[in-house]
């Protein structure tokens, strides 16, 4: 049986196809979010990768910012539960997750069976989110994917505030004009994100086993800053960006099994 999970975020779309709730047949990420052709492109790519037709999908769950506007979905789950489920599938020992997406940041507390127990989310401001990093990468004129390696060269990370993206942007411009190196500014930016999100995550208590999910988890600079801020190693799975879609596909499998179970009674 095939199930589909689709995570339509604010800046990217992710699609995952599972066989029998266990085997990952396809996982695709397209850097275009809700309201664009991103979701459709991610679906096309996932079906090509899996080598199956759309009609073969037994159940589809949508998650993410665009979950309510996803026509193929049979049900919607919040990205909170989907990331919890997806990370538990990828890294079963993890009890705390930090998920930094395009426009929000979340800290999730899991039970040992992977159920969501409690969560915290950022406030309305974009500071501490993927969008914040995108804005800063643009100011530094560095591709977003290179921010992490760049910050590894820092010797004196700059101090960048984390209250407001617009204020932080003007701080970065000031630092650049004062001759501070791009590496030190990049490291300062990562520290800024880590401090903001760590403050929120620690409201759930000090983590014993921590992982990051979402696209920002691919930024090595943020991950090491986060580990430093929280005082706990941070695990990152190579499929961290698809964790929400994996969770959605797992929920889809559970839903279908329940459906089949009840129709057999």
């Amino acid at each position, binding site marked *: 049986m095939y199930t589909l999970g689709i995570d339509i975020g604010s800046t990217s779309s992710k699609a995952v196809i599972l066989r029998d709730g266990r085997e990952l047949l396809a996982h695709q990420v397209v850097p275009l979010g809700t309201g664009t052709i991103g979701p459709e492109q991610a679906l096309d790519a996932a079906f090509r990768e899996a080598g199956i037709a759309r009609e073969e999908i037994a159940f589809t769950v949508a998650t993410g910012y665009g979950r309510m506007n*996803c026509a193929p979905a049979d049900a919607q*789950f*919040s990205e*909170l*539960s989907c990331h919890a489920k997806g990370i538990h599938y990828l890294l079963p020992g993890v009890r705390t997750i930090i998920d930094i997406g395009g426009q929000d940041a979340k800290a999730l507390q899991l039970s040992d069976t992977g159920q*969501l*127990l*409690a969560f915290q*989310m950022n406030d309305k401001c974009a500071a501490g989110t993927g969008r914040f990093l995108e804005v800063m990468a643009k100011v530094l004129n560095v591709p977003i994917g290179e921010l992490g390696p760049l910050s590894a060269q820092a010797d004196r990370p700059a101090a960048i505030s984390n209250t407001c993206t617009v204020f932080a942007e003007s701080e970065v411009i000031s630092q650049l004009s004062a001759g501070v190196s791009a590496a030190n500014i990049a490291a300062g930016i990562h520290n800024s994100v880590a401090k903001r999100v760590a403050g929120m995550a620690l409201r759930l208590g000090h983590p014993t086993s921590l992982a990051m999910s979402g696209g920002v988890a691919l930024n090595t600079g943020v991950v090491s800053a986060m580990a430093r801020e929280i005082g706990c190693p941070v695990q990152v799975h190579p499929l961290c960006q698809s964790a929400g879609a994996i969770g959605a596909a797992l929920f889809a499998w559970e839903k279908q099994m329940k459906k089949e179970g009840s129709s057999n009674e």
Partner: protein
Amino acid sequence: MSDTLNPTAAAPAQAAAAPAKPKRPKAKSLLMIGEQTNALFENARLAKERGEKVGWSASIFPQEIAETLGLNVLYPENHTAGIAARHQADPFLQECEGPMGYSNDLCAYAKLNLAYTAVLNGESSVELPDGGKMVKPDFLLLTNNICNQLTKWYENLARQLDIPVFFIDTCYNPMDYVTETRVRYVRAQIDQLIRDLCAFTGKTWDDERFKKVMEISQRNSYLWERANNLMDHKPAPIGGFELFNYMSAMVCNRGKESTTAIMEQLNAEMEQHIKEGTSTFPAKEEYRVSWDGIACWPYLSHNLRTLKQYGINMVASSYGKAWAIQYDDLDGMARAYCFASTNGDNASTMLSRRYEALTRMGCEGTIYHVNRSCKVMDCQMMEVQRQLSKMAGVPFTSFDGDQADYRNYSEAQFETRIQGLVEVMKQNKEAKSNG
């Protein structure tokens, strides 16, 4: 775990097949509230026309004083909440933060009212959506038990309009009880305030009249608390947010017999629903939650729609019950007003009140409104979340919003948080039913 069946796929078919749902007739008690509110503003207008002095008052002020003296008093906090709920706040916010030069960080009730006042005072040309029914005051009544920013807001009003403020300093409560010295301190101020108010308005204090007003007021407080407590029935007889509609009776008209009639009617309607096993809540009550903080008036309908989608009824609120204040004489009044508001209480008092409400009402979760307008409330909220969730063993979520400034809210963020809360509540429910 919870899910939402696909609304995108289902909606067009339903729209084509289902006839328009007939609108439920308004409850009689709600019609009575409408009449009472109209009368409040109309009586103030008529008093002003007769040349009598009309006041504005902070929401948690001993209303019985003005009632005993036969003074007409209006309530800026209630009035501005109404403006915000009707989505009419924008020009007032712009005026206050723009030409008037106030900070964006101020309480939005204050911002709306200061701008509205500027219009009444001929200093601004913003169009008044209600035609100026909040007539220009001749005096102000103020306590600081609910909020310390009120003192600055009212000081500014007093300077702007050149009118007096009659003020009772109620003290912060570091203890779980009120000491007699505090009671004497507040009582002495009440006595002085009554003398000053009589001298200013030309009215005369009548002890017999006061006793009568107090009897009415106490009956109303009892009935209001009783109505709030009837929400412990499952399913609750009404949608919890509906109780907010009745707050004007308790805030503005607590010492009036018209409020007794409304409260008796409300109790009777709720009892009838309980008897018949019905509810005005427009969906099956799947979850019962408590609400912490002031209502997010500009987005109340979005809050309601989202909660209804998951069958969440808000059956307990720290907000509405603040006006179920019990006292029967001036000493009792002094004691009660030292303890009448969340923002004036210490953390342990606040926690025990919330814990009691949460357990009595069988709440399965709590929603915290992180209200940008009320920094004092936000200050305690994070710790209350942590401790209350641990004590009661129920999950919570919080969202950013504002009591009157529509710019401080995101619909998508609210929806995600509520869905997340539902998923945790559902899982807890299933675990409980599986033993």
